[in-house]
């Protein structure tokens, strides 16, 4: 593995991304929407009278898990909702890289640049790792940025309890450690689809199909009303990390230079 060549691939991908307005807009859109949605709903809920949240009197009332009962209904409901939103934020690293990753190899096929590229001394690992890093790093940074922006928003419009719950370690640690793996996982799935298929739209759809089970998994956790603690999140992180490593390995294994180069459309 040659660091210079890896860096060259990453730099070229970023340069290309910077010149592709469509990709930039698409990448910025999802995080902005998420942050807006979270901060917006909390803003409106904060302005509703407390009585609205009481399951006995209000119509938006809902039961709270025992861990949150001490907080009072309004804060409890907002915090519960924010916990769900946090899952949505964790979908950003899964969703954002799909477009770029699906294009990673297909784009090279379309411009016919794959042949000159593979004629250089670059190794398959360098090429694919470069592509994966280039597509996942912006997603990771945008996700972290969304988390911080939301925290900032909550700090301003909400109360210290809600803010403290947003910042509690189970979430900030998940954000810190799961985001990179999720982004790489999604990107590697995209790269596999991109090496195997010739149509970018098909590759995006296939990548999305890879990712749906992951989304399902997170929803199951929510619906089971599991109150997430550090232990569960720690195991989840390990599981995600292991899956990611496996999928990256697979992406490199499945990249057959000769077939990719010469397969007819």
């Amino acid at each position: 593995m040659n660091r210079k060549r890896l860096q060259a691939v990453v730099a070229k991908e970023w340069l290309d991304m910077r010149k592709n307005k469509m990709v930039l807009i698409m990448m910025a859109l999802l995080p902005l929407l998420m942050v807006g949605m979270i901060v917006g709903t909390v803003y409106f809920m904060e302005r509703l009278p407390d009585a609205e949240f009481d399951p006995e009197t209000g119509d938006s009332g809902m039961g709270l898990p025992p861990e949150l009962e001490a907080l009072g209904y309004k804060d409890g409901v907002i915090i519960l909702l924010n916990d769900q939103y946090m899952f949505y934020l964790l979908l950003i690293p899964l969703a954002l890289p799909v477009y770029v990753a699906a294009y990673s190899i297909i784009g090279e096929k379309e411009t016919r640049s794959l042949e000159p590229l593979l004629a250089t001394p670059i190794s398959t690992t360098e090429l694919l790792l470069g592509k994966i890093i280039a597509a996942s790093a912006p997603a990771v940074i945008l996700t972290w940025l969304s988390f911080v922006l939301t925290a900032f928003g909550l700090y301003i419009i909400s109360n210290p309890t809600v803010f403290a719950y947003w910042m509690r370690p189970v979430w900030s640690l998940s954000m810190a450690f799961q985001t990179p793996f999720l982004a790489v996982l999604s990107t590697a799935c995209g790269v596999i689809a991109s090496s195997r298929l010739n149509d970018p739209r098909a590759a995006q759809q296939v990548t999305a199909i890879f990712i749906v089970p992951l989304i399902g998994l997170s929803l199951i956790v929510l619906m089971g009303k599991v109150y997430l603690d550090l232990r569960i999140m720690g195991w989840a992180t390990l599981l995600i990390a292991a899956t990611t490593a496996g999928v990256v390995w697979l992406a490199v294994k499945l990249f057959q230079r000769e077939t990719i180069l010469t397969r007819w459309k």
Partner: protein
Amino acid sequence: MIRTEHLTKRFGKLLAVDDLNLEVERGEVFGFLGPNGAGKTTTMRMLAALIAPTSGAAWINGKRIGQDDESVRASVGLLTENPGLYPRLNAGENLSFFAKLHGVQDITGQVRKYLALLGLWERRTEAVGGFSKGMQQKLAIARALLHEPPVLFLDEPTSALDPEASRVVRDFIATLKSEGRTIFICTHNLDEADRLCDRVAVIKQRLIRVDAPETLRQGLYGQSVRVQLREKAPAYLARVRELPFVTEVFETAEGFRVALNEPENHNPELIQALVAAGAAIQFVERESHSLEQVYFDLLRESETEA
């Protein structure tokens, strides 16, 4: 510099390259000719370590393909059939990327050198997607040269170029040859092959013939001269037939075509004999067969053999 032994490539049932034995010397410009689908690009891809041979072996600069691919790729510059540039990046960025992949030391220097040599320096900051075909082709040639490879593979370097751009590229190839590089060219432009190449190979899956264009001509047609007369007469023909060094005479519309072994030595005698017989000679010229003629005849010959 380039050597192949029984090089063979199959795609499933299809035999694309069959038992190819070639040897290209250092500094040689070698033309690779053959009809569409003859296996030219496939051979180049094998030699550039892009695809693996089904059987047989090949060496580039002493390194065997399939065993030492990284050094093979380092000593080879490849111009692919399609330029394959990144359309959103500009010319300089396209080249820098490839220079980095090749581990070039002085990236800016090399990029500047080849952009300037190919007349693209002024346009270096424009997105390549807006370049004309000819400019893209030149940029792709520059890209193949950044790491100063001793061996160059050029797949149809002047197809899709206008006559002027083709000329620029041809002159450039001549310069590269003078630098001592080994150049392997696939082309359908037979005039160009004739002008540029020290030797040409005609292939159609198998190797049909390989030699210098001039040797191929002589092998097929021997040497002959065309004589154009003001008026033809049977006596002249009979007189020429009598000459001991003449192997064959054909009548043409304006005179004869005379096949003879050493035109340099025997032409004066031929002319004397004709003049003595009273013929009024207008022109005597060396009969020239185009490489195109050679090419067709070789292919036809190989078909009748098969």
